[in-house]
Every structure is written in structure tokens, then in C-alpha cells.
């Protein structure tokens, strides 16, 4: 039973999250306490979910991109552009209470995020540029575009309807959680209840073979980048509406790295061909919990980077086949020295 549990792909990520939460519980016993105030729930756990919402969204999109064997470095820039676009539209509006103003702002920034996703997808699938480099272009230029939209300033808006997206609450929980749940549900249904997930994994394993087998590899690749752009766009809206401002320079900074980290922790291999959406969500929660924990115990928050570095390295080493083999060989050597010569050649 336990060995079967250990084989499950969510076992290690869940263990890690559990350990982190346990540490928090021991460090400050009221970590898990939830307070009901003015009809809303408050507490550290709710904070983790609320502040982690944009990261989870970006990571979901990133998971599908990585599953096709690609990578999207431009998500941080798309987050900044989408937030900047929405805040710019709202601040230019004449009637601040108008519902249509907010709606058009949302439509504009989501539309822009989709266009940027198409751009990335077209570069990778049609122009066949390496994903790292193709998305690097937008990562560099995107920050400039975001600053161009905001004119290099931090734009603040005071619009109650817009604030609701990132700071409002529904049924005593932050509204952003429901956005994340909706996107997650759509992604899970699309990939696990239709053949789309299979297509993505097949393209990730071997795009050429999939093409020969009748899958439109190019369309699949284009679609995942568009979806990733969409996720980053929504994340940008949540992030900017939570603080009611758009900062072209710092919004979504390092998001691409956190998202990749979340995906890798969740058990998705960077080589593509296999993905775990739930694993990614847990991975993103681990990162957010880690950040919250580091803030709480009073270590300078920048030290998070050192911790993250070791987490990335440890997870990658565990995923690396040659590392596992060399460890296994070392363990085996002691028990069965005769088996040494039988080890197959690893290319």
C-alpha cells in the first residue's frame, strides 16, 4: 500500500508541502487559524492561496508548453503587459463607474495576451525557432512594451469593479481562487477528458512522429502557447488589480522562473512528453508557502533565491536518470558486488 502510494506522482510534492506546513505549524501554532471577519475568511492559508493565484495560473499554462517539449520565458513580460493595458484603459476612461469600461479593459488586455501567445506560438511552430530563443525575444521586448504602454510610470487606478478581480471575495473566499479553479477545471477537462492531452504528450515525445501519425503538431504547439499567453494575461489582471496599479518594470518579475520551478517540482519533465497539472498546482503552492514561511521567520526575503536554487537542483537531480543510476549502482555495489559487470551501458 505504502509502496504504491510512493509511486504516485503526487507523493513527493505533497510530502514537501506537508513538511513545509508542519514546520510552519511548529514555528507558529496559529498558522492554521482562520478568522471570520466581515463575512470574509482571513488567515495565512487564505493568503497563500490568494497571493499564489497568479503563479498557479501562469504555471498551468507553462505546464502544457513544457509538455510539448517547449518553454515560455515571456510569461513575466506578458503579465506586466496585460496589467499595464488594463490599468491604462481604466485610467483613461471618463466614466469610472461604468461596467463597460472595466469589461473593455479586460477584453483589451486578454486580447493582447492572446496575440502575444500567437506570436510565440507562430515563432515556435511555423518559423521553427528554438522555444527558449523564440520566447526570449518577447521577454526582452515585452518589458519595453509594458513601459511603453504605461509611459514608464506606475499607473494607479481606483476602480472598485476592477479591484474585485484580485482583491474581492466571493462566498467568504478571495475571488482570485475561483478564477484559478475555473481555469484549472477547463485545462484538466480539456486535456484529460478529450484527446487533446494525448496529442500534447505525443507532440512532446516526438513532434515529427506525431505529425506522421496524423496529429497536427503545429496546431497543437500553437495552441499551447496561446493558452499559456492567456493564463499569463489573466494572472497579470489579478496581480495588477490586487494592488490597483501597473508597474511595467517590476510586475511579474521572475515569474517565468518561478513557474518553471513549479512545473518541475510538480513532476513534469522538462524534456516534454508527460505532464501533471495537479502536480504543478502543488508545486506553485509549495513555492508560495516557502515565500510566506521565509517572510514569517524573519530571514531577509531575498534569501528565498538561495533556497529555490537548491530546490531546483535537488528536484532536477532526482529526475535525472544518470544521477539515479549512479546512486543505484553505488547502493547496489555494497550488496551484490557480482552484479557490477552486468550494468548496462548508459549512452
Amino acid at each position, binding site marked *: 500500500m505504502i509502496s504504491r502510494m510512493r509511486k504516485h506522482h503526487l507523493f513527493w510534492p505533497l510530502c514537501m508541502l506537508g513538511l513545509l506546513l508542519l514546520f510552519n505549524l511548529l514555528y507558529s501554532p496559529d498558522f492554521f487559524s482562520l478568522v471570520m471577519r466581515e463575512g470574509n475568511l482571513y488567515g495565512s492559508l487564505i493568503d497563500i492561496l490568494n497571493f499564489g493565484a497568479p503563479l498557479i495560473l501562469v504555471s498551468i499554462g507553462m505546464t502544457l508548453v513544457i509538455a510539448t517539449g517547449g*518553454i515560455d520565458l515571456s510569461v513575466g513580460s506578458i503579465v506586466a503587459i496585460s496589467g499595464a493595458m488594463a490599468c491604462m484603459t481604466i485610467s483613461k476612461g471618463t466614466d469610472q463607474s461604468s461596467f463597460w469600461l472595466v469589461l473593455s479593459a479586460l477584453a483589451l488586455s486578454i486580447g493582447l495576451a492572446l496575440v502575444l501567445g500567437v506570436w510565440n506560438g507562430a*515563432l515556435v511552430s511555423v*518559423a*521553427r*525557432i*528554438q522555444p*527558449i*530563443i*523564440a520566447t*526570449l*525575444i*518577447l*521577454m*526582452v*521586448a*515585452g*518589458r*519595453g*512594451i509594458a*513601459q*511603453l504602454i504605461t509611459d*514608464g510610470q506606475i499607473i494607479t487606478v481606483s476602480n472598485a469593479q476592477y479591484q474585485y478581480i484580485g482583491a474581492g471575495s466571493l462566498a467568504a473566499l478571495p475571488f482570485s481562487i475561483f478564477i484559478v479553479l475555473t481555469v484549472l477545471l477547463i485545462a484538466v477537462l480539456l486535456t484529460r477528458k478529450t484527446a487533446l492531452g494525448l496529442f500534447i504528450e505525443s507532440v512532446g515525445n516526438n513532434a515529427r512522429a506525431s505529425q506522421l501519425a496524423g496529429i497536427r503538431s503545429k496546431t497543437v504547439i500553437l495552441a499551447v502557447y496561446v493558452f499559456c499567453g492567456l493564463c499569463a494575461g489573466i494572472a497579470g489582471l489579478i496581480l495588477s488589480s490586487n494592488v490597483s496599479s501597473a508597474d*511595467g518594470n517590476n510586475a511579474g518579475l521572475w515569474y517565468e*522562473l518561478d513557474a*518553471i520551478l513549479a512545473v*518541475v517540482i510538480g513532476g513534469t519533465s*522538462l*524534456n516534454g512528453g508527460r505532464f501533471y497539472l495537479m502536480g504543478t498546482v502543488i508545486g506553485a503552492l509549495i513555492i508560495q508557502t516557502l515565500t510566506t514561511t521565509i517572510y514569517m521567520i524573519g530571514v*531577509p526575503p*531575498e*534569501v*528565498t*533565491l*538561495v*533556497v*529555490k*536554487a*537548491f530546490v*531546483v*537542483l535537488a528536484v*532536477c*537531480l532526482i*529526475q*535525472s*536518470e*544518470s*544521477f539515479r543510476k*549512479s546512486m543505484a549502482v553505488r547502493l547496489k555495489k555494497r550488496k551484490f558486488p557480482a552484479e557490477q559487470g552486468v550494468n548496462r551501458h548508459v549512452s
Partner: protein
Amino acid sequence: MYLNRKLLPVLVTFGLLAVMIAIGSFRYTGFFSTQVLFNLLIDNAFLIITAIGMTFVIVSGGIDLSVGSVIALTTIISASLVEKQGWPPTVVIPMVLVMGAVFGTVMGAIIYYFKIQPFIVTLAGMFLARGLCYVISTDTITITNSFYTDVAQAKIPLPGGSFVSINVIIALVVLLLAIFLAHYTRFGRNVYAIGGSEQSAMLMGLPVARTKILVYTLSGFCSALAGVVFTFYMLSGYGLHAMGLELDTIAAVVIGGTLLTGGVGYVAGTFLGVLIQGIIQTIISFEGTLSSWWTKIVIGLMLFVFILFQRLLSERRVSAKTLQ
């Protein structure tokens, strides 16, 4: 003829650089002076050194995202050792150079022996180095040590009334050494061979393990040296120094005509790539009305054009091969 095609991207870069200088000279008075050109070198000396290290990594088929963080780490270690601990610069500078090289070696060893993508290993290295900066200090440490200030303010006069800094001399020496290393040594040829096809290089009996690890060692060393130069340039150590420099570096290498798939590229091209970025910044500052974020957009666009251009070139090469 074959050599010409490989040289073509470099020639295009060179032509573009000449056109940009020409446009600048016609549009702005005072643009075409030797000092403006030498200022390009003075302001970008550290970028030249970093990009040279990156060229070797990219030619070998890898990538190094840790360069910016290693520069920041070097500045802050130098500053804190010299200013707070009172160590002499003659000890500190060799020490940080060794540290950078070791940092690169460790990353290279992990990449080679555990077959993890260079992208993710150097990403971890980037986090680690940036985080270590903040462990040492979260504030700027200003350097007042006389050795550092003397080097920073030294002006080497050139005929014609212009001058360069010691940093430029260091960068140019590194450039010459790198050209020698890439084209006239066994190590250089091995790097090109591995970038062309690692499998073939292994079957030919080339020392793949040693070369791959050495490439990252070289990049780590170059980043640390760029960090030392950057310390001279800024006269301070700070964890936020050289933020996002890895992108500028990769952009310079690509614009300089190095193929991102590895195997093709010139160190001299990278030098031109850095100069083009410098020229864009100079033109934007001369223009006055354009904001600095246009630099990013223009560099992004140029990256796009150059990558597409490379794509077309390599496709034509493939079709030419199949025709034969």
C-alpha cells in the same frame, strides 16, 4: 564558398553597425567623434567580456543564464572584502576570479555528468549567486579603496585627444586571447566539434567531458572578470547590479552571428554584437526625446530579425546539401 556563408551573418552585423554609425553621424552633431566610439568600449567593456564567455558556451550547444548574477556576486564579494574586511585588492581579485571559474566548473560538471539541461542548471546557478549576494549584504557597498579608484579613474590617452580606460584594455586583451583560443587551439576546435554534433565528437574520440566542463569554467571565469571590470566601472558592490544582463549577453552573441543550435559562430562577431547594442543606446540618448525602454524593444526586434535570418540561412544550407 562555404566559409563565406558562415561569415555572412558577421558581415551583415558589420554592415549594420557601419550603417548605424553613418546614420548617427548624419543626424546628430558631435556623434562622429573618436571619443563617442571609445565611450562605446568604455561603457560596454564588461558586456564584451561576458559575451565572449557566452559565445563559447553557445557554440558548444549550451547556454549560461548565471552570468549576470555571477557579476553581481563578484562585485559584492570584492566590495565587502576590500571595504569591510580590509583585504588587499591583490588578494581579492585573483580570489574572485578563481571563485567564478569554480562556480562554472561545478555547473558544467552537473550538466555533463547528470545530463541535466544546461538551461535549468544555470538557472539554479543564477538563483544561487543572486541569493548569495543578499546573504552578504542587501545594501550598496561603495568602494573607496585607492587601488580601485586609481584604476577606475586612469585614462589612457590616445593620439587624437581621446582616451580609453583600463577596462577597455582588459576587454580587448580578452577578445584577442579568445579569438586565439577559438580558432588556433585544440580546445577551440573541440568546442566547435561538440557544438556541431556531440555524438560525432564522442565517436571521434574528442574529450567531450573535459571540453564541456571547461566551456562553463571559461564562462564562469569571464563573468567573474567582467564582475571585476564592472566593480572598477561602478566603484560599488550591490546585489542588484547587472540585472537581466544574461539577456543582453545572449542577444549580443546572436546578433553577432553565432548559431544558437551550436557549432557555428565567431568571437569577433560577438564583439560587433555588443557594439551594435551600445550604438543603439548611444543613438537613443543622442535623440533625447526617446525613452530608454525603446532600447529593449529595438534589441528585441533585432534579435527577431537575426534569428529569422539565421533560420533562412541554415534552411538553405540543408536544401543545398540534399540537392547534392
